[in-house]
């Protein structure tokens, strides 16, 4: 019996690069048959680290593993005439083609949307690009960092007295991948209803902009250019931190009050906790966090004085202690987690988040992130690890397209596959 999945029966051809590969993986996670198509020798993003045991090898990139699971993989040179023919035969079997080339690249090869329609009239082609397929900047040279810069979120990210910074990891492409998966599913829905395919234009810039939490809406509403605030919350002229030093790192504590009732109640409970450990001065216990705390009327010195006992208290606590007590006491706080904290978090373990995946070629079992959501039916699972270079050539070319072995040998020698 066929496994119950959300998207079982759909086929996706994934020509994407870098983090955009997450788009195809999301389809794979939901059960679609995703075929990763790489140039002979493999895609460049196989060269992105980190690597398994730090061995730089195209079949050992952890970046590749992380964004290409639940896919099969073939090599195919679509710049070559024979390769293009094979690609079109595959398109004939597919519902969706995902790509992240420079705008116009597929058109130039005779593999644009209209040419793909000649092969399969209801095909969906989804193109992920930094700026979009059209417009004055569509041909601009870009990188993950410059896409980040184009999207406002860079401007408001980082310390106020330093240049804007990103997340130390190229993730604009990853966000573009998830955008492409959503938009492709819109188009698939449209096809289910109307029977027609289409070309989906997925610019990363306007999607990534949303990750600024719409900071530009302050400009729209109030002509205010919201600045970087770093680890501080700013209320009028005073600012106060929400990231604090603790015994073994940093913790996030949303302190304060006033109109923000949830924060006021949380801060009161925080003071109760300090009091139980004899670390809440009498004056601090007297503050009415709802009616008696108005950051807009305070000076920076007054704010520092109020926060000092919290700083002192938190230095006696570990990330884990703050995390557990925050849950127990309904305090708005959590650890500022690094990858080690996340990998050892007991909550994620209790939810069975991590997935162990067998890597026979490494004679090892690796731990992967689980599904991006939990489903009561048709669950997300890691059904296969990311493909090695050309791992499923035989299975797909011979087994599914019916090519003869001697034909494959010719294609191999011509460096088509």
């Amino acid at each position, binding site marked *: 019996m066929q496994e119950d999945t959300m998207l079982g029966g759909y086929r996706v051809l994934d020509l994407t690069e870098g983090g955009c590969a997450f788009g195809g993986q999301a389809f794979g996670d939901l059960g679609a048959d995703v075929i990763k198509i790489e140039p002979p020798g493999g895609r460049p993003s196989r060269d992105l680290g980190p690597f398994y045991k730090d061995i730089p090898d195209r079949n050992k990139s952890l970046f590749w593993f992380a964004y290409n699971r639940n896919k099969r993989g073939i090599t195919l040179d679509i710049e070559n005439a024979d390769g293009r023919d094979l690609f079109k035969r595959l398109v004939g079997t597919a519902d969706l083609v995902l790509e992240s080339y420079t705008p116009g690249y597929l058109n130039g090869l005779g593999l644009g949307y209209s040419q793909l329609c000649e092969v399969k009239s209801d095909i969906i082609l989804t193109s992920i690009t930094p700026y979009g397929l059209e417009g004055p900047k569509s041909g601009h040279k870009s990188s993950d960092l*410059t896409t980040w810069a184009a999207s406002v979120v860079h401007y408001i990210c980082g310390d106020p007295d330093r240049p804007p910074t990103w997340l130390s990891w190229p993730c604009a492409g990853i966000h573009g991948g998830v955008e492409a998966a959503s938009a492709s599913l819109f188009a698939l*829905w449209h096809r289910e209803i109307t029977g027609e395919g289409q070309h989906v234009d997925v610019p990363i810039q306007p999607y990534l902009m949303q990750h*600024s939490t719409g900071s530009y809406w302050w400009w729209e509403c109030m002509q*205010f250019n919201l600045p970087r605030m770093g*680890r501080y919350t700013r209320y009028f002229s005073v600012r106060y931190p929400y990231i604090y030093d603790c015994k073994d790192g940093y913790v996030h504590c949303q302190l304060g009050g006033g109109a923000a009732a949830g924060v006021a109640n949380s801060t009161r409970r925080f003071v109760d906790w300090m009091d139980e450990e004899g670390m809440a001065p009498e004056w601090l216990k007297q503050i009415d966090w709802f009616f008696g705390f108005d950051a807009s009327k305070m000076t920076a010195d007054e704010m520092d004085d109020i926060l000092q006992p919290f700083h002192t208290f938190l230095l006696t606590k570990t990330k884990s202690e703050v995390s557990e007590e925050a849950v127990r006491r309904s305090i708005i706080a959590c650890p500022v987690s*690094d990858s080690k904290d996340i990998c050892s978090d007991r909550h994620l373990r209790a939810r069975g988040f991590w997935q162990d995946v067998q890597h026979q070629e490494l004679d090892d079992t690796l*731990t992967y992130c689980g599904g991006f959501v939990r*489903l009561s039916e048709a669950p997300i699972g890691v059904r296969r690890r990311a493909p090695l270079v050309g791992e499923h050539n035989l299975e797909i070319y011979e087994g599914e397209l019916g090519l003869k072995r001697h034909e494959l040998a010719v294609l191999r020698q011509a460096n088509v596959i």
Partner: protein
Amino acid sequence: MASPMFAGIRVLDMATAGTAPLALRWMGDHGATVVKVETHLRLDMIRMGGPFYHMVTHPDYSGWEMMFNSSKYSISLNLNKQEARDVLKRLIAEWQPNILAESFRPGVMKRWGLEYESVRQLSPDIIYYSTCLEGQYGPHSQRLGFGTVTNSICGASHLVGSADRPPAGAPLAYADFPSTGTALVALMGALIRQRRTGKGVHIDQSQYESNLYVLSGPLMDYAVNRRVMTRNGNRVPYAAPHGVYPCAGDDRWVAIAVFNDQEWERFCEVLGSPGWSREARFATLQGRKSNEDELDRHVGDWTSGREAGDVEALMQAGGIAANVVVDNKDIYDDVQLKHYGHFREIEHPVVGKVRSETPPFRFSKSRDTHFRAPLIGEHNHLVLSQFLGMSDDEIADLYANGAVTTEADLPSVGKKAD
């Protein structure tokens, strides 16, 4: 023109804050009928937490409301009243929404008799989407928080800033949005399966887990190599210069990324091949990485007198990836967004003209049906009379017994000043 993509699709949006509402707004932008269930008694932080038009701190003047809840209808109910819960149950049973979304602390919906098991009795094929910080079960499922807390717990905050400083934290509610994207993927998968099989599903979204795919590389790096990734400004191990450089004006910057030796040569030509750029220590990527502080200083000296837009143009002409670090004002003049008509001026009955946002992705065969955000409770009468067929008397009763909330129920901070 063909009918909108989601014509006939019905969504009950009981969620607050950013994650679920934005995903559902994009469905509303393409023709789904999305009914937002809210209350005057405890205002959505979207209505009160962000910027306000005309400096009026009232839920109908919220800019964030335009961003997150356009293309929706709004009803205002006090769900602590049995009569209001009955209205909601009738909406589920009679209006038959395809999707119900909620973002309460786990347990709240059950207390109201509105958890998945009860709701599916009323509507067996419903897609019931729950979203919260750490998911519906597990030892920390009751953790309180919102987007900024997610930033920190999911590893994003730790990776923002400089190596010599404490984490600068990811900005505002950054981590709400990876959850928006994955939720939309799951909802669409569920909608397609609902149509194909007639089956519903409960989606349990932990926004913490929904963010981890963004960092799955570094997480695997720890799991395999025991390496803990840390923040490092704008740098990456495989490119230099790769960063943000000061330009003329106050807080103006340009991002530049140079990956290989060919690009480096072109980059030097754009700069006019100054003496330092010909030094042997900068000739190779390894050399540039080893001397990156000095390199960045030279590049910054060159950019600092120039307009950010001019540097972008010069770099692009030389085939080098560069972009102005676009600020909150610049974005409204962005030539790409203008080309796509991303911001669309629409009329709002209270605020006046609004530069509303259309969905970021574009379809060759479908147009959006974007419309303005609702006033709080604006569609009470429409939904109760047309979707549920209630008489005016029945509706008046709901107002009288407080099941439907009104302006009079606003907390003092949300009241309009005279």
